């Protein structure tokens, strides 16, 4: 009958010192499809797998450009990410208007962290059910930050969150030493490869289900989707040709 008395709200500790609502929110992140981020000395890259609810539907947005110098990738509840990204856009704009400078990534990260943490401390509120990777370039160079529903944020060299992201992280850990000196193209290839690691056996990275966000020193944050990433996919997975181009996906056309 009484499975758990301590998970009704986010302000009650369990006798073991845990806050279950926060832990459940962190589970929501693990339900979302995988996103990875990597930084080098010059660039920051976000890569994500998009999911579609059904064959004929569109794909859920995974990478959101916030300001010209950075963007976020999300795993978890997209609606919560929308709230947070709107807030980040407001804060970024206000930094530009008041101080005439792009906001620091460490600044914006701690601002959403404060917001998220407040949600875990007030009765009647709930934690955000979304994890974010915040990547871009500011006055202090390229950065990648991880944000969790608990309000924990960390600066990372490389990071993956979302469903089956352990496989992606394993790839990132194996190649950790290479990232710092990587070129833009190498960094993109690493991101795509790590993304592929966490894909189910029968799944493939395609122009439809992959999102890339790239920014660098002197290069604004840009979102690559659809045909724009075809070349990145080709150069990353050169051996793809061996398999017959995944049949049945394309529309049937009369070839008269």
């Amino acid at each position: 009958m009484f499975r758990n008395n301590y998970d009704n709200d986010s302000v009650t500790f369990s006798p073991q010192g845990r806050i279950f609502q926060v832990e459940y929110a962190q589970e929501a992140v693990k339900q979302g499809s995988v996103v990875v981020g990597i930084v080098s000395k010059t660039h920051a890259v976000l890569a994500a797998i998009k999911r579609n609810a059904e064959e004929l539907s569109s794909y859920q947005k995974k990478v959101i450009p916030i300001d010209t110098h950075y963007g976020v990738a999300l795993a978890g509840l997209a609606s919560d990410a929308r709230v947070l990204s709107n807030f980040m856009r407001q804060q970024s704009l206000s930094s530009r208007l008041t101080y005439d400078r792009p906001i620091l990534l460490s600044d914006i990260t701690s601002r959403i962290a404060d917001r998220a943490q407040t949600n875990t401390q007030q009765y009647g509120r709930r934690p955000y059910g979304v994890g974010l990777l915040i990547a871009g370039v500011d006055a202090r160079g390229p950065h990648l930050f991880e944000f969790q529903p608990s309000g924990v944020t960390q600066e990372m060299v490389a990071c993956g969150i979302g469903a089956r992201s352990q496989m992606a992280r394993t790839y990132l850990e194996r190649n950790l030493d290479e990232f710092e000196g990587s070129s833009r193209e190498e960094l993109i290839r690493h991101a795509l490869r790590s993304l592929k690691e966490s894909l189910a056996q029968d799944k493939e990275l395609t122009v439809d289900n992959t999102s890339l966000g790239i920014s660098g020193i002197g290069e604004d944050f840009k979102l690559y989707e659809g045909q724009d990433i075809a070349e990145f996919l080709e150069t990353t997975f050169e051996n793809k040709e061996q398999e017959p181009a995944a049949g049945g996906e394309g529309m049937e056309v009369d070839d008269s």
Partner: protein
Amino acid sequence: MNHFPVGWGRPRDDVYGAYNPSYLPQSHGGTQANPITHTQSPIVTGTSVLAIKYKDGVVIAADNLASYGSLARFTDVKRLKQFNRKAVVGFGGDVSDMQYLDRLLNSLDVEENYGGDAPAESGPHMSAKNLHAYLSKVMYKRRSDFNPLWNAMLVAGLDESDKPFLAYADLLGTTYSSPSLATGFGAHLAQPIMRRAVPNEAASRELSKEQAVECIKECMKVLFYRDARSMPVYSIAVIDGKGVDLKEDEKLENQSWAFAEQIRGYGTQTV
């Protein structure tokens, strides 16, 4: 018991009688003729601020006088305020508003540096350009509230890429920038002299620190000759890549009042 929240915490009408609002202006239910007003003119004022850009930085100066009308009331008022090691603000106009802005800028500096985990070598994140943008927004906000901060200011220092930066902001929220700038009387008396040294940006990139300091000192002297609200003790700051060098007790050197005898047309002379 008065159940209306508006009555809570006020003297009770049945004990003290109804509140007498007659001292209030008409706009607030009283009988006074004049409405509530904000600052209509400055009270204790500082005069000109001068600044000039040179190849590695900026030189800025203002005298140490705060006048009460035409009375030289305070002779030790430092009107150059260092914000961080990249920016100095020089204030002309109302001294109390300067003190308010100084406190505002100090709290801004604390906020900027609080909890910072930035590496020491990355330097302050707030450049003179950022500070000027912020200040001009504060000034424009206050004038839009019809409650202006009665100042004209120069922000001198380095921008985010450590190039010399100099810009003006005033009580109207007006801003502009130039290789040399002056507020108040200095805009009439000193600016033409400074423009001889730096007619354009290219010239300011050629100017040496010694030439810039010399030019500013010369202008401070001319201002003391001709501006009746000035004094011969002044502050001068040089901001460059090495930081801020602020001196607050400089005295004018080599004054020569010989020209004064030639002046005709006003004063006590009868010829």
